[in-house]
């Protein structure tokens, strides 16, 4: 009998429903695990144990009455930029260190209505800006496979907590790869849904046209169950898509015979680690062996995505983060009578270097005289990138690429040079630019560190991607590998 904290969401659901254990047992077990490893992994900004045990008690009552839902009693970590009423939501920033939301994000409202159990809030790069979790204003999260290495980012806490069995499942957010890249570096499954599929209400905004909430889990099935619970139209998010409800678990047959997979050569970039290339190529052969057809395709605008992203995302960020002025909430510098000085010092002391860098980059790109050369140009390039994907998806059903060109790197290795850090997301950024769904699935190891393959599909093709991942998981065991902590 495995420990309860080792269970997948799917297994935990079965155990709770059959009465093999209670939601309180399961929550206690997760906190026992957190007690064993959290000091070394540091995946949580806030732990909510007493709240969780109360919620688990409620879940047990709900289950006893036969009113449970798919997430009832499931212990969840929630990234610390998703608003949780009455529980601090810091964005791993000094600016929001003492901020307590007075309302729930829609995704958390949906989960808590089902009596899902909040274990705590996940560490992240400050305001979701970063690829290593090193930009957290509080502490870096450590990769459970090698504690001297980064877990990826920005949802590093989400991926590390699932990999270390400190959570059954986690919610992250993905603006340029922030779910998929840490999932890849930690050897777990991460799904970024189609833009608009999941409500952003209550998600602290970074780049509104790119941000999307999604699950990080131990399997494709676990991500599908979680997506079922959080997806859907929300009148409080004006970009929410009004679609009929979909059961993302229904199509998980593992049958991918005849599916057409495209391999875009542009994603196998120079500087990609040989071990990553080998693992992804082996995974593609495996998918071919399962009956999918594989053909090379071309996405010639790929090389422009990085520049396009680093104009659009900072521009939106500079507007979104203008709200942190020290007046209504958040950190506030008081030791002056001058309004402007108070505001400037509040932002100087409240934001870390990467956030300041991106706000200034955005302010510059939007400023008089530069708007056409940068922001407008980037939006036009965004059209070309979208058209590239649209053309390729007339030819194939999904694309397979590496998620990250590199495996987890040592903490501190890339912090001095922002451009080097940005380059890590070269395979994940284009997907947000086009608003597509994509996921990262564990597909092997390079020098003992996990490698992820990325599956990319046209808008609203989550079911197809999840089924490709499901087929691959049935044929391989990579997603079951766990670090020895």
């Amino acid at each position, binding site marked *: 009998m495995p420990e309860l904290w080792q269970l997948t969401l799917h297994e935990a659901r079965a155990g709770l429903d059959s009465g093999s254990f209670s939601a309180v047992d399961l929550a206690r077990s997760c906190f026992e695990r957190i007690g064993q490893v959290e000091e070394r992994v540091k995946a949580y900004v806030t732990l909510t144990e007493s709240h969780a045990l109360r919620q688990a008690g409620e879940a047990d009552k709900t289950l006893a009455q036969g009113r449970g839902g798919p997430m009832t009693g499931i212990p969840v970590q929630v990234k610390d930029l998703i608003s949780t009423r009455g529980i601090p939501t810091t964005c791993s920033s000094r600016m929001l260190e003492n901020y307590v939301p007075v309302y729930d994000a829609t995704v958390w409202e949906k989960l808590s209505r089902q009596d899902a159990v909040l274990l705590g809030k996940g560490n992240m790069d400050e305001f979701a800006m970063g690829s290593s979790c090193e930009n957290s204003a509080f502490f870096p999260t450590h990769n459970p496979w090698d504690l001297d290495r980064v877990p990826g980012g920005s949802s590093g806490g989400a991926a590390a907590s699932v990999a270390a069995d400190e959570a059954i499942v986690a919610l992250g957010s993905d603006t340029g790869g922030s779910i998929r890249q840490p999932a890849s570096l930690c050897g777990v499954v991460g799904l970024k849904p189609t833009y608009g599929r999941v409500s952003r209400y209550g998600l602290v905004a970074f780049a509104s046209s790119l941000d999307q909430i999604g699950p990080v889990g131990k399997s494709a099935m676990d991500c599908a169950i979680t997506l079922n619970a959080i997806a859907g139209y929300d009148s409080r998010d004006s970009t929410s898509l009004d679609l009929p409800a979909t059961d993302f678990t229904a199509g998980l047959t593992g049958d991918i015979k005849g599916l057409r997979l495209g391999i875009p050569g542009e994603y196998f970039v120079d500087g990609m680690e040989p071990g990553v290339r080998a693992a992804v190529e082996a995974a593609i052969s495996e998918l071919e062996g399962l009956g999918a057809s594989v053909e090379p395709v071309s996405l010639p605008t790929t090389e422009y995505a990085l520049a396009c992203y680093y104009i659009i995302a900072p521009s939106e960020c500079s507007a979104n983060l203008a709200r942190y002025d*020290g*007046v209504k909430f*958040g950190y*506030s510098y008081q030791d002056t009578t001058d309004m402007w000085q108070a505001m400037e010092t509040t932002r100087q002391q409240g934001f870390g270097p990467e956030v*300041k860098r991106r706000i200034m980059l955005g302010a510059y790109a939007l400023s008089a005289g530069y708007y056409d050369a940068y922001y407008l140009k980037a*939006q*036009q390039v965004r*059209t070309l990138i979208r058209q590239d994907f649209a053309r390729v998806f007339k030819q194939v059903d999904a694309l397979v690429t590496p998620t990250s060109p590199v495996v987890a790197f040592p903490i501190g290795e890339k912090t001095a040079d922002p451009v080097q850090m940005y380059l890590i997301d070269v395979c994940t950024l284009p997907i947000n630019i086009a608003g597509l769904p994509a996921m990262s699935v564990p597909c092997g190891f390079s020098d003992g560190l996990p490698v992820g393959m990325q599956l990319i599909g046209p808008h609203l093709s989550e079911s197809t991607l999840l089924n490709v991942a499901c087929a691959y998981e049935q044929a391989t065991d990579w997603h079951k590998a766990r670090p020895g902590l």
Partner: protein
Amino acid sequence: MPLDRADVEHIAALARIGLSDEEITTFQEQLSNILEQFELLKQLDTSAVEPTGHAVEVSSVMREDVPDEPLDPEDTLLNAPRREGDLFRVKAVLEE
């Protein structure tokens, strides 16, 4: 196109971010390096390309104008850095 110190000070003023002398030096170099990466986009002819603001088509969304429960005033003020009664206390905005 490299930025000079005055450019960085101008951008910081636009963004209302105070910067130390060392920060100005660091950001001057880093932002210049990043802007250099953007030059790549000039290779693409976009003269006939419509810009994309959102990747997924969503037209203007309107809802019925039905009153909803507003936030409780206490909740609204819960995170106020400084309050006075039911008001946010702020620095003087108008000069004497």
